[in-house]
């Protein structure tokens, strides 16, 4: 199992994105509301986050290519907890969104 966090910039989000990425069946939990660490909660959400458990390397490779080919997507290794994963790129969860 390859655990990844897929970040989707709000401006580039669309309802069928996970299906297009071939990831619709691999999500763990609800989407996360994410924002920069230095923003205030009232500034709102900048990204949506999807924790993915990807079973096969082929699926992971396809996702990497999808991320390269589409604007506003970032794929992060979930090698620690979600808070640390986000903090490493200046982001955090917006708890009030």
């Amino acid at each position, binding site marked *: 199992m390859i655990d990844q966090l897929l*970040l989707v*910039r*709000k*401006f580039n989000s669309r309802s069928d994105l996970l299906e297009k990425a071939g990831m619709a069946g691999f999500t763990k939990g609800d989407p996360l509301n994410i924002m*920069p*660490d*230095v*923003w*205030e909660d009232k*500034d*709102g959400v*900048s*990204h949506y986050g999807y924790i993915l458990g990807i079973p096969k390397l082929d699926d992971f490779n396809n996702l990497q290519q999808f991320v390269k080919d589409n604007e*506003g997507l*970032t794929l*992060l290794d979930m090698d620690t907890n979600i808070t640390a994963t986000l903090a*490493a*790129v*200046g*982001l955090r969860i917006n708890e009030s969104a």
Partner: protein
Amino acid sequence: MTVINPAIPAGPYTFTWNGNDIGLTEGPARMQQSPFGLPVRATQWGDTIIDYILRGGGYFAVIVVKEWTTNSKLFMWPFGSNQGVIDEPGRLFSSYCQALVMTALANTPAATYGPVTRTYHYCATLPGHNLDIQAGPQERNVVVALGVLPQPNSGGSYKAKFFTDT
């Protein structure tokens, strides 16, 4: 009738280095990158470059620091905020590198079109860059040129990753 609404990602960014706010800056941050390549020539083509052998790349940034604080001084001189001392010869640049995180101001086109954040995971003042620090009845704007070091793009990879955009 509608406005043209071009996708122009304008908007200021704020900066932290090693998790600390470096304060106000002057003008835009300049994010620079260039591929390195060895020119390929052949006698039959004279001096014409017929291809390049790609050999990695270099990533740099230029930020003009405006405030004079412990954080901003450490950012421009990672050997210590008193700036009067440089460490022993032989130390590696990488040991002074820290993460620089740029964040777009909320509700700006930059925060819409991105990057909302850019993280240079390992960077510090570029060796050889001359910090020109002015003292006088004016703003103390200091141009800081940053060298960026890469990490493997993934485990076992020799693709060099220099930053992460979100």
